[in-house]
């Protein structure tokens, strides 16, 4: 089913709405669009001025996907873009900027199930607005192990006077963000800071934590990925759907929830699907809003 719709003053042509994008869950493209429509008010501030990398699954989550950095030429005329220098291409790449509900519907209609964003806001491509730490469980570890390490990291950061927020990756991982939102920080500083944290955690518990990307060192350990603090790296945006068997979402968590999940040892308590996230937002608003508002400086 196709439809031409009015969203505010924008006219958008939606295609293949009946197509099932999550075959195991029977979750269709209309449901993907409906999820993004419901969460748009809290998601849009997190996409604001962040060049977007599309991760498109035209045939569904179990088929071939592709990344699209360059904003497609057939984009609507009203969709703004941001030029970001690409070392690899030796030229600027114009990325899509998603600033309004119609734009979000447009990217979702391209079957860009996952939304990946940079840690900076255009046009200040050299100024990270936050630090990201991705705790990724190696074989034999679960998201609960990551969350436990996350609690330790949270205490460590608090001792330095830094607030941090947590979200699920939407998969097996656990993400922590340290908001900065201050003019000073560079990626060199945030990367060094994140690497020092990761290496210290590794030294304290080398059998369960690694700061090294190498796959063979990750087994039985949690990989603390500090390397995402880079002008050229993107991470999955909060509230983005993930292309897994079921329509899970990268979901913000309160530290009380993290504590409860660790105490009970229940990985399920750290997995949320589209409908649950939409309902959480309706009840509790944006648990991740502080990532955009808290102003902090690195010690």
């Amino acid at each position, binding site marked *: 089913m196709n*439809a031409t719709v009015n969203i505010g003053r924008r006219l958008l042509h939606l295609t293949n709405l009946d197509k099932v994008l999550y075959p195991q869950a029977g979750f269709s493209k209309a449901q993907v669009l409906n999820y993004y429509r419901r969460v748009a008010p809290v998601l849009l501030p997190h996409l604001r001025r962040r060049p977007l990398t599309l991760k498109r699954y035209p045939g569904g989550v179990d088929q071939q996907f592709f990344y699209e950095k360059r904003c497609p030429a057939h984009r609507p005329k009203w969709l703004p873009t941001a030029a970001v220098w690409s070392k690899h291409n030796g030229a600027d790449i114009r990325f899509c900027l998603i600033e309004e509900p119609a734009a979000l519907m447009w990217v979702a209609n391209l079957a860009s199930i996952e939304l990946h964003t940079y840690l900076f806001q255009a046009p200040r491509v050299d100024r990270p607005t936050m630090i990201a730490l991705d705790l990724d469980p190696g074989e034999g570890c679960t998201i609960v192990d990551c969350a436990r390490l996350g609690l330790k990291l949270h205490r460590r950061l608090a001792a330095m006077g830094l607030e941090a927020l947590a979200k699920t990756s939407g998969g097996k991982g656990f993400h922590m963000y340290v908001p900065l939102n201050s003019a000073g920080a560079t990626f060199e500083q945030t990367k060094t800071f994140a690497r020092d944290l990761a290496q210290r955690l590794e030294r304290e518990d080398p059998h369960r934590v690694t700061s090294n990307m190498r796959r063979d060192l990750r087994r039985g350990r949690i990989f603390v990925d500090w390397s995402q603090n880079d002008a050229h790296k993107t991470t999955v945006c909060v509230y983005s759907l993930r292309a897994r068997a079921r329509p899970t979402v990268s979901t913000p968590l309160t530290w009380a929830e993290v504590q409860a999940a660790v105490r009970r040892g229940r990985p399920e308590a750290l997995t949320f699907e589209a*409908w649950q996230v939409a309902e959480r937002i309706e009840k509790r608003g944006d648990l991740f809003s502080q990532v955009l508002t808290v102003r902090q400086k690195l010690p």
Partner: protein
Amino acid sequence: MPVGRAIWSGSVSFGLVNIPVKLYTAVREEPVRFHMLHDQDKVRLQRRMVCPADQKEVHPEHIVKGYEIAPDQYVVVDQRELDAVLPEKSRNIEITDFVDLASIDPLYYDRSYYLLPDKNAGKAYHLLLQAMQTVGKVGIARLVMRNREYLAAIRPLEGVLALSTMHFGDEVVPASELEQKPAAVEVAQRELQAARQLIDSLAGPFDPRQYHDQYKRRLHELVERKARGEQIVTPPPVSGHKGRPVDLVEALEASLARIKGEDPRPRRATKGAPDARSSSRGSRGKSTRR
């Protein structure tokens, strides 16, 4: 027969015989090459190494080699250290074994060359050539070329010796190590028979003249057409707005209604889904749902 100059010269030895030879490439690969031009004035561009820290050009004498052991952690090796582990320079191709051609799987072959006799080597060369033709064996040898050590197979071919460099045993991935090997499946005798008949109907001698690189041919055609001044255009993508505009929610609901069930929330148990929860009990229990 071979075009161009010899790429290597030395000698083949086996036992006490030593035959001066020259090596010529047996494969002519002529890929279509493009150059990088500036789109404004079409000037051919140069590559320069630039340090991202200060955007300044780095000249060759200040470039060292680093091996990345972990992200952003390198071991630096200098040319002297690399030279020390180079294979010993040798101008000798020493045949150490003779094996049956059929015992070498084509997976092992890399690049092909011809070995021709150097000055005054005619007699010894033909002795080796004819002896190998009569026993029908392939000589296995080692040679050092361009600072690399190669394993090679030498065999008679149309009155000359051909040399194929080969991969070392540990470079070839055995099929047994593949992660997604096809599972054994029982097939019906009748189906097998039909498949064999199909193979028989397509069977014949290998004739390399039958097969051509079509991509290369099309590339040549493209370049020639452009050179003759024909204009080549790419049509812009088609976009179309059809039908009367409706409300977004209306459109989504219409689609959801077509797929019955509307909302997937009650369908929790999906067999085999790694992240499916077993039940809806627990801290975020029923009270959070309508």
